[in-house]
């Protein structure tokens, strides 16, 4: 059998036509067929709008911000107070709306900060390689060796309680995931044609990373970031629950559960409302995340 095997028939002249839809449009097409994801989207939207327009939506904005109203304390849900009042007589609905401002924004900002730290480091590690890569990757190993709730808790107590410090503390435990993701994507891009081409015409390294590498790795990063929002809100709530994070009288869903837990057996409504708010939000983000993961899977795996 001489020679014949190995000769392949490939009478292609043109490649198959490229997809006419952008990645995001294809992802959206599959995403919107998922009913749970759309419900999730609606829940999130309600909570965001509720938090954003809290002063317009409640007749008790000053109670939402923390002013006590002792005479009205421990009132069960009624027409005047749809979710009842808490141990200081504050309207629970107002507290939930105002608490959403802290809980939601802390979750969002944690992910944003982690992306801002993690993505450039990952791109640098992947693009430069060598000892820079080695140092950055060993740093991610160490940060990932800590259970993140615990590390965030320690850092936040070192910095002192408060919204900003707690948010920073969580973000510090979170960035390595994005660094790893971006690094692996960058590694596979580094050898691709357009990066080689940019290098061959003498474009400086930072320009190649900024204009050719980063834009091409951001789709998986945004998908991952969306997936992470639920966990970020959950961990923020946990730190608020143990007394770090937002300080009373300001409201956060986490510290509302913490304040209400001692009364929970007899008067479950105010800790319950805050706990349910966290649960619904995280559930909604998980619905969205699952649908997004399924929809984006082919694009995440492609490289």
């Amino acid at each position, binding site marked *: *059998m001489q020679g014949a*095997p190995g*000769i*392949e028939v490939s*009478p*292609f002249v043109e490649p*198959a036509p490229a997809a006419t839809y952008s990645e995001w449009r294809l992802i959206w097409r599959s995403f919107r067929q998922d009913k749970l994801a759309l419900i999730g989207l609606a829940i999130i939207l309600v909570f965001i709008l509720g938090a954003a327009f809290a002063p317009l939506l409640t007749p008790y904005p000053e109670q939402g911000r923390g002013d006590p109203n002792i005479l009205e304390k421990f009132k069960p849900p009624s027409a005047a107070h749809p979710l009842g009042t808490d141990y200081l007589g504050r309207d629970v609905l107002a507290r939930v709306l105002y608490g959403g401002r802290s809980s939601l924004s802390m979750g969002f900002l944690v992910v944003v900060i982690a992306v801002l730290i993690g993505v450039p480091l990952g791109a640098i590690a992947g693009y430069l390689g060598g000892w820079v890569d080695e140092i950055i990757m060993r740093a991610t190993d160490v940060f990932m060796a800590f259970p993140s709730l615990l590390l965030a808790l320690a850092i936040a107590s070192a910095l002192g309680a408060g919204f900003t410090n707690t948010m920073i503390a969580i973000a510090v435990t979170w960035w390595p995931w994005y660094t790893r993701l971006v690094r692996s994507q960058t590694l596979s891009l580094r050898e691709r044609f357009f990066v080689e081409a940019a290098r061959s015409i003498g474009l400086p390294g930072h320009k190649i990373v900024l204009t050719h590498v980063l834009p091409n790795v951001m789709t998986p990063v945004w998908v991952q970031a969306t997936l992470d929002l639920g966990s970020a809100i959950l961990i923020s709530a946990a730190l608020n629950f143990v007394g770090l994070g937002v300080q009373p009288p300001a409201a956060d869903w986490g510290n509302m559960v913490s304040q209400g837990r001692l009364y929970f057996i007899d008067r479950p409504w105010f800790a319950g409302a805050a706990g349910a708010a966290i649960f619904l939000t995280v559930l909604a983000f998980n619905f969205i995340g699952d649908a997004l993961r399924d929809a984006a899977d082919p694009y995440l795996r492609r490289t």
Partner: protein
Amino acid sequence: MTELLTVENLHVVFQTYAGTVYAVNGMTFSVQPGEIFGLVGESGCGKSVACLAILRILPGHGRITAGRVLFDGHDLTQAKESEMQAIRGRQIAMIFQDPSTSLNPVFTVGSQIKRIIRHHTQASRQATEQRALELLDEVALPDPPRIMQAYPHELSGGMQQRVMIAMALASGARLLIADEPTTALDVTIQNQILELLVELRRHVGLSILLITHNLGVVAETCDRVGVAYAGQIVEIGPTSEVLHTMKHPYTQGLLAALPSAQQKGRDLLSIPGSVPNGLSVIPGCPFHPRCPHVMEVCRQTPPRLTAVNPGEAQHQVACYLYSPETAQ
């Protein structure tokens, strides 16, 4: 002639996000006992899908919409799942393109072969061991006792494919479907595996349905060949006839794309256009958008397979250039 396997007018579709993909559109061919039949075509022509359909192991979003698959006279498209399970392995075995992913990575070669032997023969432990060693020897693997202990990743690609063939023999199959069995291997190893298949046909009397995109492989091993395009057979017949007096413009294009001694130094002739994606059924002859000899009738009605010469029923082609209706 009593055919072992007859595929008649087989249709298979897949439901995808992009729409319905028509993968196999009326494929018809047969494999006779002791024969090596080659099914050749570009990737995406439906040849692999047809084989999965024969064994009824299409992925979840694919289904057979029409046609029959007769094995020993039984229609497999109507068989119950339990009946299919008795057919798979025991009657029809299959090996795949990439042997490294077809072997289970966390079991030794020996335990994988023995599991199949025991399932199909209920032989004693000792007899099973003995049979496994014989099979490894039969596919010309050196030092069978050592191979039995090895994990798949410890073997080379060629050895892995030999193990796959041994496993196919282990169940006692009469028909072996070999889906691009040599594509992932080095050229020299490819030849050895093909020689092994030819030899097994001679010794064991195995019938083989060989799927390939490589006309060289067909020329060296197959008794008969079918050329598939867009989920249909466009030309079928004894290998030497099809390859020497090829009739269908697509077969001609395929052969022209082969570099040969006479053509050295010249550009490869290629067929303009691209393989249809299967998202829509092409009206008329599926090849007409790329055909250099396209006529008006080609755009209207699909041609049927007809004998090239009235005296020779074996060599058939589906093309109006040769059909009696338009031959005048």
